């Protein structure tokens, strides 16, 4: 469908259906039935099989009309993409709708104190007892877990096979007595991530996804979506200004809670958008050394965007595997963020010592400087991305491995 066709169809549909006096969930259900909640999803699951570009046109019309879109913020996207790709029809029926309506929020329970980069070395236990999965162990760095209804959980169900083969993937109900999330404070002062303790937590058998022992495959699906997300610009879903109507109040409240852990995420990407305005306002735009570094940043940023567009295009043509392309984009995002942080420092000079309301851009620049280190860790470190790129894209040989054979026998953290 052409962009113009999409525009006119969405507009006509909004004319007939969009009203500010509907309750939020009721509106989202109408949106779902109309097929405009997630147009890039397949037709049998609320979607229209649109490309990402076509979907962007839909989002644009919604923004122009100040129409509230489907719920988007947070790790829910990882959940829906994973369930769409690997879930059973029953799981899709039960979980996809409340993700889109905003009734359920999600979190990702992957990392553990003993295994982060080496995700497949995880040691949270999953045991089948009386037809139910019983979970024991600890997760950490889990963003949004403190308010999540469900978690994407990977746990070990078999200790006697090589590590990648003994993992199962579960959709964990977080609202149960055996699950406790405790917020952790980060170096930038925010509390977005948590540690999560599971003590005899229960998962019914129908919430195992992808089959027993097949969890690594499902986890890779989640990770590939996550990495691609780093290289794509996060599209703002908030509605500008103080719009009048009951639905906006509900929506703002939803965003306030769901988006809170992410207020600093634009800062961890380096705030490239603030570089030129700040350089002009401070006069450092006239400094030759600063100009050189700004130009390098613009080249990186522009080139990475162009490269990811063409990777997106070739992915559509089915020629590139998802994971390596995502790794290149994620590594690019780190390089850009570091260069931006470097440039912001050059621009602010001694003022870079300050933070808070009296500092540059109302504290945003200070937050950039102390948030950028996260981007090269979260979602798989830079070093891990380089391993993936060199082995999977360039076909360089794997190094010596000390983690083969039954997982039980492998050396790991105490």
């Amino acid at each position, binding site marked *: 469908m052409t962009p113009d066709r999409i525009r006119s169809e969405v507009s006509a549909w909004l004319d007939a259906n969009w009203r500010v006096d509907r309750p939020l969930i009721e509106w989202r259900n109408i949106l779902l039935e109309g097929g405009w909640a997630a147009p890039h999803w397949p037709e049998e699951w609320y979607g229209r099989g649109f490309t990402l570009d076509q979907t962007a046109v839909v989002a644009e019309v919604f923004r122009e009309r100040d129409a509230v879109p489907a719920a988007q913020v947070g790790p829910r996207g990882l959940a829906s993409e994973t369930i769409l790709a690997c879930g059973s029809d029953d799981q899709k029926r039960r979980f996809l709708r409340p993700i889109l309506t905003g009734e359920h929020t999600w979190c990702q329970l992957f990392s553990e104190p003993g295994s982060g980069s080496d995700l497949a070395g995880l040691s949270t236990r999953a045991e089948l007892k009386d037809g139910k999965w019983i979970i024991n162990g600890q997760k950490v760095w889990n963003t949004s877990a403190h308010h999540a209804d469900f978690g994407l959980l990977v746990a070990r169900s078999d200790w006697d096979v090589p590590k990648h083969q003994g993992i199962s993937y579960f959709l964990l109900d977080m609202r149960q007595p055996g699950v406790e999330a405790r917020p952790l404070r980060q170096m930038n002062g925010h509390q977005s991530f948590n540690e999560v303790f599971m003590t005899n937590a229960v998962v019914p058998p129908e919430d195992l996804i992808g089959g027993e022992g097949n969890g690594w495959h499902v986890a890779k699906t989640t990770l590939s979506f996550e990495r691609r997300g780093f290289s794509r610009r996060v599209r703002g879903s908030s509605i500008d200004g103080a719009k009048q109507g009951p639905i906006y109040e509900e929506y703002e409240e939803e965003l306030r809670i769901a988006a809170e852990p992410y207020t600093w995420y634009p800062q961890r990407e380096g705030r490239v958008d603030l570089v030129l305005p700040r350089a002009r306002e401070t006069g450092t735009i006239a400094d030759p050394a600063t*100009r*050189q570094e700004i130009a390098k940043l613009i*080249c*990186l940023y522009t*080139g990475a965007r162009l490269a990811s567009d063409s990777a997106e295009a070739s992915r559509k043509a089915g020629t590139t595997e998802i994971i390596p392309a995502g790794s*290149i984009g994620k590594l*690019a995002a780190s390089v850009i963020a570091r260069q931006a942080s470097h440039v912001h420092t050059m621009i602010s000079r001694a003022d870079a010592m300050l933070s808070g309301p009296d500092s540059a851009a109302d504290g945003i620049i200070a937050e950039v400087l102390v948030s950028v280190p996260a981007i090269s860790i979260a979602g798989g470190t830079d070093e891990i991305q380089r391993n993936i*790129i060199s082995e999977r894209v360039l076909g360089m040989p794997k190094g010596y491995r000390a983690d083969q054979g039954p997982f039980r026998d492998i050396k790991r953290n105490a």
Partner: protein
Amino acid sequence: MQTEFSKEQNLLRDIVSRALRDKSPVTAVRESMATNRGYDPVVWQELCGDAGLAGVHLPEVHGGAGGGAAELGIVAEEMGRTLFCGPWFASAVMAGTALIEAADEEDRGALLPGVADGSTIATLVLDDLNDPAGVGGSISSAADGKLSGTAAMVLDAHVADLLLVVASGAGGLGLHAVESGASGLTIEPLQVVDSTRKLSRVALADVPGRCVGEVSGDALNRIWDRICSALAHEIIGGAQHLFETTVNYTKERFQFGRPIGSFQALKHRCADLLLEIEIARALTHHSARCLDAGAGEPWAASMAKAAAADACMSAARAGIQLRGGIGFTWENDTHLWFKRAKGSEVLFGTPAIHRERMMTMLEGAA
């Protein structure tokens, strides 16, 4: 604006790539670079006369194929990949572009067909190869049309039939056609780092020339941008060659009982290199699309030239380092691409000059 290559463009790349692999293998490059002439006339005839590689971007009415900066870029990229040794860049890219952008219609009709089919070898004489702002500082034209001055470095002037000289005159810069045997013209070949690209000093003492057009400041910048975009393509082709052969080498060379490509220090260096090259390549292809569409960032060619030159030097340094001792020998081919990378890094503006140029344009646009 286009974001991918069309079917026709991919086909063009295949044809050019096959022709160059066939006619200009590295053994032939080594033979040509060791001669004073610097190219093989038989191969020149085959590639330019028969295959039309010198006219890919020139108008059809003047014997070209009617392509744009994108098509020129495709040929340049493959030329860089195979390190073609000959006056293609000087004649087709530099002189061809100058004629299109600055010559009057009549002179284009007279001069372009020879350039397009390779029967004329032309070059562009600029007295500054760093910055367009400096062009015209050393060569001037008198009221009677005679040219005087010096260009410190001119590509392939020693084999050129036609020299297109940019000189300053009473009314600003002009483009002047000079025949190779003109009186008062001295062409002195220079010793160069990259012997696959020959340079000469060109001195003019009251040389008779014919003014074929005016070169406005805008036209000079357009010429500069088109040359830089094509050069960025050539550089990216070289970077790609260096990178691929280096990665392959790390898979074959064993130390400590394992391929050196299994060492993480080398893997990570290669992964970073891939990223740097991907970004530079995207900017390079984008620069040609901007020129063809007459849209996009006015500084796209400077972004491309700066990024491509830096990426190629990174690939060249890694190409030597990751090979160890063999990489530092004359016998191994890597140094040929290293030297081209070094030459291209500084030709038509170092990366730093392009970054400054881009910031100037960007501030102008703000």
